[in-house]
């Protein structure tokens, strides 16, 4: 009996120290869930890529309620997971408190800035990537009218719209940009039916290219655009393959790279504030075999030139978040 207990506790202790020494990274998904075909899934892809390449393992959790944000952070921190990556701006309040309690654990938050010495904050320059796809949209449009469909109406998404409109107007100052948001609650991230209706409404206003920055809602936008002879632009992941030849391009937001890099850095993750823009490959536009035919040499030359100018600082794309206004679009 005592021998058994001793053996058990020895194994348990061993398991515990092993866990702490290995310091598996952990990933926390937001309420949208792991397989949302968008933001969270992109984070998961990055983590999985790291696991496949290194043979390592990671812990993960999908949350059920807001109260669990802090709980999950603390539990992973106490378990010795390091680094702990969370996908989504909504973790900021919880992380602010937890990070201070676990100074030896590294955290990474995406889409939000948390100013703690052991936190890496990653923010994407969505306006830069959107600017480029806006240029493509304007050049591909025959009606001089293009559309934007956002998910939930938050500053983050308005920044997508604002960058897009700037890109459109830089090519054709007379073009019209129609902008619609799907909703004002998190449900707007996953409403493909409404996305489809908005697409039809924009078509009736003359739009022939539509850019969806709306998570799962975008699936409906892309489908309806493909069914109605419109071109569409995907977001976050490369969505060109969804409707080959009907998707003009996709605005890439490499959440997967951000997660992958954090996992690869492990416990040595450097804290700080990182902006992932065009210069460091954090955002971009996708060209592959599905949309090659849609993008002419002239178009790609213009976009590449603009990309170089943005990186060089010659073109300043206005960031909506900096002052909550947009020079090119009214909301």
């Amino acid at each position, binding site marked *: 009996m005592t021998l058994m207990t001793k053996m058990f506790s020895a194994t348990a202790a061993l398991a515990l120290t092993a866990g702490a020494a290995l310091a598996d990274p952990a990933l926390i998904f937001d309420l949208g*869930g792991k397989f949302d075909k968008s933001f969270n899934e992109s984070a998961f892809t990055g983590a999985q890529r790291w696991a496949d390449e290194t043979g390592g393992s990671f*812990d993960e*959790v*999908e*949350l*059920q*309620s*807001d*109260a*669990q944000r*802090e*709980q*999950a952070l*603390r*539990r*992973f921190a106490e378990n010795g997971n390091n680094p702990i990556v969370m996908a989504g*701006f*909504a973790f900021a*309040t919880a992380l602010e408190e*937890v990070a201070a*309690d676990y100074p030896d654990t590294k955290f990474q938050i995406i*889409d*939000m800035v948390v100013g703690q010495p052991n936190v890496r904050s990653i923010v994407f320059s969505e306006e830069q990537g959107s600017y480029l796809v806006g240029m493509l949209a304007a050049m591909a449009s025959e009606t001089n009218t293009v559309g934007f469909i956002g998910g939930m*109406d*938050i*500053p*983050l998404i308005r920044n997508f719209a604002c960058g897009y409109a700037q890109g459109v107007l830089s090519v054709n100052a007379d073009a019209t940009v129609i902008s619609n948001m799907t909703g*004002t*609650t*998190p449900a707007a991230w996953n409403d493909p039916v409404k996305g489809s209706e908005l697409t039809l409404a924009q078509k009736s206003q003359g739009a022939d290219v539509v850019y969806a920055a709306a998570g799962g809602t975008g699936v409906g936008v892309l489908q309806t655009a493909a069914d109605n002879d419109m071109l569409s632009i995907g977001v976050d992941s490369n969505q060109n393959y969804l409707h080959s030849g009907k998707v003009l391009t996709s605005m890439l937001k490499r959440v997967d790279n951000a997660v992958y890099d954090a996992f690869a850095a492990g416990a040595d993750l450097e804290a700080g504030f990182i902006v992932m823009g065009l210069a460091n490959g954090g955002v971009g536009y996708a060209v592959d075999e599905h949309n090659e035919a849609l993008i002419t040499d002239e178009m790609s030359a213009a976009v590449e030139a603009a990309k170089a100018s943005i990186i060089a600082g010659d073109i300043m794309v206005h960031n909506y*978040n900096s002052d*909550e206004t947009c020079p090119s679009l009214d909301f």
Partner: protein
Amino acid sequence: MDAMPKWADVVLIPLISLILAATISALVILAIGESPVEALNLMVKGALGSTYGWGYTLYYATNFIFTGLAVSVAFHSRMFNIGGEGQAMVGGLGVALICLYVPWPHWSLALVGGILAAAIFGAAWAAIPAFLQAKRGSHIVITTIMFNFIAAALLNYLLIGALKPKGSMEPATGKFPEATHLPSFQDMFSFGETALFRGAPANVSFFVAVVACFAVWALIWKTKLGYEIRAFGHSESAAKYAGISPTKIIMISMMISGGLAGMMAINNVQGEAERLVLNAVEGAGFIGIAVALMGRSHPFGVFLAALLFGFLYQGGAELALWTKIPREMIVVIQALVILFTGALDDMVRAPLERVFLALKRRKRKAA
């Protein structure tokens, strides 16, 4: 009516329902290739094995005590208040307004203010369906559930508009000022180096919930009003004959009910989040129905049932963290318990009554 002794009604039926739910849950876990024993072990250890686990279990339990009491009080007058969700949301609005816009000098005063605001807002939200029922005969089940949607829409509107700080991405209010923060169990029970209840959200409002249990018990069984509520619940016509005003009883019992549901907000809004977020109630209003049914509308029963559901919630969270059981499956397990203890009560009751009747007959024959 008296087919069964009281202990069987109070103890045996919930117990059998629980065992049934646990058995089916175990089968479900087996079916997805995980070990039910290990899962149960994780749940018990995670929810009850440390002060930290208790801190979460009691936090959830506090929510469920308030909403469970709310359903119980209304049910004594045979009003089926399924609007606890909406009343708790609006109660949260009351707490948020009073915490954000009143400069409180100390948390104890802020707590009193929070309780009053939450109760008044919750009661006001319940008063409208109550009035429609009392005066116009609109069925309370329909109106209260519709008011849940109206409350959700109202909060939506406010949290993306007037109450949201500029530049914030989230549909939520700003953080409440420091003086309104309620002491958590960690603040109250940690001495020196040993931090108990570390990081857990249980806070002083748990004791408010316990006091509320006693208050409801005293109200229902020790006061004239409580007698009237029960009399009305048993027979409306008899109550009328005895000079009890139906309008008054419906209004008062529903407003007490709404006030109790609203008071949940001092726990989840003022105590835990310290700001008002969208969907802050997270279904606690509906869990309250199961809690009240399982607790036989008695405050002590509600207290125990709330603890059980607190355990299920916290245990479920631990399962999600440390096993590969998907989130949806954990909801299924929680739902099974609700289904069996709440909805399928009669499925256990009828056969059990038959057993007891048979036993009685045999005894009588023997005598």
